[in-house]
């Protein structure tokens, strides 16, 4: 049981959630992070604003990509045709989530984003997909690009009275994607992740390249891979743009599973492998 007493509300729409949150408390999405924290007595909000009845689980294709509600679970992503088509990176990411299907059925992408844990798959993947968060609050709705969504470790850039409604994810159809996660075994959270998106034109020249690292710093780190643009990307190019990624880390993250020095050391190979995979995937897309 959760030690501290709290009020549980599950408003029927987003407006209700915003109104409820105006009275303070904490948002409850899938519950897989918040509830254990409360069980351990590490968090004792007076109120839980539960999003599950607020109609935020939509997952649909739009004209230019995806609309993904904050309550979409990893299982929703894995079962979604539009995700497979427009955001294969998210699909790969969801398929590697620790915790088995019982967890994938319950844990949400939105919840993981708002937990903003450095050792999570989600923040860097959202940044790599150029997702845009839709946020609702008492002062109205606003959009926050994923790259600006993470203010620090465990600190999303939302105001305390704002609620994440969902994400718009531009279509990556036709682009190649690569996702590499380094863990210390099946029980481990991610130590380092790299999410890459590469698009090649008809003759094989790189027209778009994105590489974002997760787990290695407090917030996702975007790596400048613009040197690949306009080129036929070969292994040496990938190696060249990833060799010094550790230098791009302002302060490598360290925790009980892996010190900062380790994360800095593995950042380059993890980045290289993801980018290589994205290039290979893009070549397949082109073929």
């Amino acid at each position: 049981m959760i030690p501290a007493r709290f009020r549980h509300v599950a408003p029927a729409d987003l407006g209700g959630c915003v109104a409820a949150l105006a009275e303070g408390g904490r948002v409850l999405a899938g519950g897989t992070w918040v509830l254990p924290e409360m069980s351990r007595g590490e968090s004792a909000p007076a109120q839980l604003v539960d999003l599950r009845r607020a109609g935020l689980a939509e997952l649909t294709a739009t004209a230019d990509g995806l609309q993904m509600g904050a309550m979409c679970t990893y299982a929703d992503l894995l079962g979604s045709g539009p995700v497979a088509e427009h955001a294969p990176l998210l699909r790969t990411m969801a398929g590697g989530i620790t915790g088995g299907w019982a967890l994938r059925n319950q844990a949400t992408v939105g919840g993981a984003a708002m937990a903003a844990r450095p050792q999570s798959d989600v923040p860097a993947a959202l940044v790599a997909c150029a997702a845009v968060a839709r946020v609702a609050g008492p002062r109205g709705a606003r959009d926050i690009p994923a790259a600006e969504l993470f203010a620090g470790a465990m600190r999303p850039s939302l105001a305390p009275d704002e609620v994440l409604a969902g994400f718009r994810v531009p279509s990556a159809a036709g682009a190649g994607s690569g996702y590499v996660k380094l863990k210390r075994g099946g029980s481990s959270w991610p130590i380092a992740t790299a999410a890459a998106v590469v698009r090649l034109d008809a003759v094989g020249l790189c027209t778009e390249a994105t590489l974002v690292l997760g787990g290695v710093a407090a917030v996702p780190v975007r790596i400048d891979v613009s040197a690949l643009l306009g080129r036929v990307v070969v292994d040496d190019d990938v190696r060249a743009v990833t060799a010094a990624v550790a230098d791009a880390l302002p302060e490598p993250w360290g925790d009980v599973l892996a010190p900062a020095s380790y994360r800095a050391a593995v950042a380059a190979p993890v980045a290289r492998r993801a980018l290589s995979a994205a290039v290979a995937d893009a070549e397949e897309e082109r073929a």
Partner: protein
Amino acid sequence: MTGEEGRVELRLTVDGAERTASIDPRSLLLDALRDELGAIAPKAGCRTGDCGACTVRVDGAIAKSCLRLAVADDGCEVRTTASMAVGGELTPLQQAFWDTNAFQCGFCLSGMLFAAEDLLERTPSPSETEVREAISGNLCRCTGYDAIVAAVLSCAAPPVRSSRGA
């Protein structure tokens, strides 16, 4: 609805029976099942969603009941491993777990059985790796998993024969 001493009424269908209980609203689904509804099949091993011993089905989907607020599941249909065997007859999976010694202390069984059942529903002829992945949200400290993997594989449907020349 708040009742005596701040307790609330919870309505659940548990293993096929409609039940109501007056629960402490701080209860996780796991607590409500075990403490208020006498459903002891799910176990509390970690309360952090890591071991999977508390696994149940909620409206058909497998879930870790330590990660759910009981009041939020009001009105849901919950199944535990106690109602897997219909009419007292063990499912092939339960039978296989027994026959191949796929458990020792048995504490992990709710999670292992549900993870395996869920896999076989989605993937009737899984590979060994798929079995290992499917049960990797669950911890077992006794068996080393090999016997569990063998039990699940023994319940796999025969692979669909690919048509010639395809």
